[in-house]
């Protein structure tokens, strides 16, 4: 009964001399893994969004956080006139990315999404475009 107690003390003492794994967050930034699902981005091709406005992403979205409205350009092609994601509802499941048939959507490593106002959590098309 006494030996396990002493062994426990030994383990904690040993840990005290190990290098801490803490990341000093605002000073040191983590690099998220390539699979990390952070903020969405609309991919750009020929200087405009690749999105063809097929409505698959809002359909598949379980949190119903994506709003898409179609528009028509001079060549009579459909494009997303309005594309909004409400980050307060988004659950970062990545279904929208998987559903997209033209590979127009991706998820970036951006994870600092805090804001002061509710309106600032709605990411409109301009904010989502790949930089």
């Amino acid at each position, binding site marked *: 009964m006494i030996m396990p107690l002493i062994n426990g003390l030994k383990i904690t003492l040993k840990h*005290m001399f190990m290098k*801490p*794994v803490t990341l000093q967050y605002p000073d040191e930034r983590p690099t998220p893994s390539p699979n990390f699902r952070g903020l969405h981005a609309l991919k750009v091709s020929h200087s405009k969004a690749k999105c063809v406005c097929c409505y698959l992403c809002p359909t598949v979205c379980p949190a119903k956080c994506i709003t898409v409205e179609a528009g028509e350009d001079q060549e009579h092609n459909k494009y997303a006139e309005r594309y909004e994601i409400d980050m307060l509802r988004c659950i970062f499941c990545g279904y929208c990315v998987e559903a997209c048939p033209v590979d127009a959507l991706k998820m970036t490593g951006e994870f600092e999404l805090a804001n002061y106002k509710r309106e600032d959590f709605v990411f409109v098309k301009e904010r989502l475009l790949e930089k």
Partner: protein
Amino acid sequence: MGYEILGLPMAYYIAMVLKVLVVFVFVLLTVAYATYAERKIIGHMQVRLGPMRTGWHGLLQPIADGVKLFFKEEIIPSKADKFAFLIAPLIALVPAFIGFAVIPFGETIEVGGYKIPLQIAAYYDTASGQVVDLNVGVLYILALASIGVYGIVLAGWSSNSKYSLLGGLRSSAQMISYELAAGLAIISVFMLSESLSLQKIVADQANGAWYAFKQPLAFILFFICSIAEINRTPFDLPEAETELVSGFCTEYSSMKYAMFFMAEYANMVTVCAVTTTLFLGGWHGPSFLPGWFWFIAKVYFLIFTCMWIRATYPRYRYDQLMRLGWKVFLPLTLINIVVTGIIVSL
């Protein structure tokens, strides 16, 4: 130096007051920085860093915490017993500090031709050439330790909250069961030193081996019981936040809450100082460094041990705690007394 009061020069009284002030400030600083040390040590034991952002390596954290607690809103529940509610933190805090009065923390120093012992409640008797201190010093400390629990029980009762009341009652039950074992554990020390005076107990250990080696069982039992008595992890049941929210201090806020917090740490310092005095030879150590240094080093080592224990063990369940106190520690201390008695009388 011209003034004399009761046949003693002013310098003597000034030295006495200084002694109290130095000890008080020292204990207060130790209490403040024990909170910091605890967060750092436990952090590193969990392979974390602990506080880092306030000052260099978070060194100003206790001061920042103090300032924060001063400016927080004070809330007194409307149905609380106001007088008891306000006085309870004081009852918890004061005994924790005044226990230090009888602890010898160094050898005698000379000021203006007068020898002054480094112990608050003591004086140097020029006739016999000996330091005279409170001859029931240990009893005084045990008495104070049991007064501290009144603060906790009163806090629990006066808050008018079921959680607080349960926390306070638990604490009193725990205190009684462990104080008994702690008191019995040090009886074997009295049997060896034949005195209750802490000066005599320390002097005895300077000549022979420390009582920690002569009475290892009593040493370990006393230390564990003391930890239980001051409600530290793994025996911090009055504050068990999972089942009792925060126990007796649920309804307390700002500085009154901080006083309970300070009382806990001051109690820890006192308990470690008492253990040092009774079992680890007090201020005695190799003579190349002054006595007070050895005393502080030993006390700090014991404080570190308390934090180490906290980082290691999970909290006891209430029935386990009671079983350990009454069915394990109490019989062990009684056996220790009998065995010591037989050895002493042989």
